[in-house]
């Protein structure tokens, strides 16, 4: 009888402390409240031993905390440690892939997303969608277009984004890139006109007035004092510098405009790739 009571006592005692044996509900609470640094600290300093499934959840939470803090490399490492049996597996895999897309490690992203062998919709469609996005980001427009056309049109959570990627491809195909060389030549003939061509009208007019002003000052000093006078040389140098820098500025303006266009397209693709992930997994 004495021993039975002892066993009962031990069982009850263990039950009493059971809530402290796992951190998972608390970690989930921290994630929901947006305390990501706290989550990472807790998981990194946790000395408890968890079962496989709980370890998977911990890896997922850590990866998600890093993802939310934009530590994408650490996020990928943790998310890839989530096992196949975990309910977080698919989400972890896709977000790890997305992290790599964001970091422009396209081959790694392709490996992470491409190896998922899941037949149930919408996962295969989502895989194709993400892969076509990677192709677009790598500049393989025709391959991306083909892949987008093969996407199952009955998946409502993705349809809008497929259309949006299609529109981006169309925009890219019809986009006429501005020539830095032409901008430079234009500014060489009429200072500031290269910037107007690049789309910076106000800046172009301001450069035109400034260069013309320095030109007039140089001309006045040249006419009254001659070419060898220090004032003519001084203002002439400023005029020459202004003229040359205006040509250089026009070339750079066109390059900046083209880079801005590419960045906008890049961000738009990333944005579209992200939407279905949030729609499907949250």
């Amino acid at each position, binding site marked *: 009888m004495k021993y039975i009571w002892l066993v009962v006592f031990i069982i009850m005692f263990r039950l*009493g402390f059971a809530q402290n044996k796992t951190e998972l509900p608390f970690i989930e609470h921290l994630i929901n409240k947006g305390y990501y640094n706290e989550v990472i600290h807790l998981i990194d300093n946790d000395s408890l031993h968890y079962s496989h499934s709980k370890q998977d959840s911990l890896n997922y939470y850590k990866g998600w905390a890093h993802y939310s803090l934009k530590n994408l490399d650490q996020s990928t490492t943790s998310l890839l440690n989530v096992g196949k049996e975990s309910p977080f597996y698919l989400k972890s895999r896709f977000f790890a892939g997305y992290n790599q897309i964001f970091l422009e490690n396209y081959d790694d992203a392709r490996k992470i997303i491409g190896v998922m062998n899941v037949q149930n919709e919408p996962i295969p469609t989502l895989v194709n969608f993400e892969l076509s996005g990677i192709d677009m980001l790598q500049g393989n427009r025709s391959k991306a277009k083909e892949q987008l056309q093969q996407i199952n049109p009955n998946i409502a959570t993705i349809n809008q984004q497929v259309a949006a990627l299609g529109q981006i491809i169309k925009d890219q195909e019809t986009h006429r890139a501005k020539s830095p060389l032409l901008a430079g030549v234009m500014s060489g003939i009429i200072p500031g006109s290269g910037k107007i061509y690049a789309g910076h009208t106000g800046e172009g007019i301001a450069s035109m007035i400034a260069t013309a002003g320095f030109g007039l000052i140089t001309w006045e*000093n040249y006419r009254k004092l001659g070419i060898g006078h220090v004032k003519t040389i001084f*203002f002439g140098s400023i005029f020459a510098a202004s003229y040359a820098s205006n040509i250089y500025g026009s070339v750079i303006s066109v390059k900046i405009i083209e880079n801005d266009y590419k960045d906008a397209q890049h961000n738009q693709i990333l944005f579209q790739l992200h939407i279905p992930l949030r729609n499907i997994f949250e």
Partner: protein
Amino acid sequence: MPNTIKFFFSFIFLCGIFLSSSAAVLKGDSLYAAGQYFEASIEYERMIFNAEAQADLYSHKYKKALCYKQLRNFDRALEELQPMYFSNADDSLYRQVCYEQSLCFYLNGEPAKALWKIDEYFHRSDDTATYRLFIPVKLLCLNETLQWNEAKECFIGFIQMQNFTPEKRTEMYQIVNTLYEKRNLPHIRSIKKAENWSRFIPGSGQIYAGKTGEGIVNFLINASVLAFSAHQAINGFYITGYLAGLGFFNKTYHGGIKRSGILATQRNKELIVNFNGEINATIRSNFELN
């Protein structure tokens, strides 16, 4: 098995459960005492997560806010303190929460909000003995918002709340009167005035804002550019005089006006910080704050 043993086992079991929750609170407190504020904030959040009673929840939130205050994260401290509502204004926790809220507002550079919080406490609580806790913060906030007369009255009221000897009290009154004498108050520069000075005499706004050297340099630059412009025009170099001279003068002149406004703002901040530093030192060396 005798009843005493059964009772003994049940007692240990219940104690175990109770101790596990109080152990967590102790863990938070000991981490806080050891200066590990981030770790302590996590333990208090755990207590918030497990709390069942409203009073416990508020107490843990308050302690968590203290951790954030120590971490200089006043926004997060205020986030913890703001949503608490107390129906009983004489609750000691209400007093502590109001105090920390006003202090965090002040430290976060929001003295008007701190004053509003202190006034709310004074309005709601009848326990006038607790007001003295708030006076130093109120005093600093009134100084920061340039309410000198109110600040002086507040300081005198604070002295009256202390158990000073008559001699000490007289000495403190003298100190306060000296501190708040017009000639000892921070000479706050008007930003508008600084800009207008620079508008009429370039560089004078900087001198008014306390930067004499910079003002002189600015004046000389403007004068030189203007002189160059006039010299060119007189000698028949109209385009050079107009475009190079006046064009450059336009930049230095307007830049100087803007700069004098910035300098006046910076100077005002410095003066208030120094003045509040003096007040702080006076309070620390003469008053018992606990």
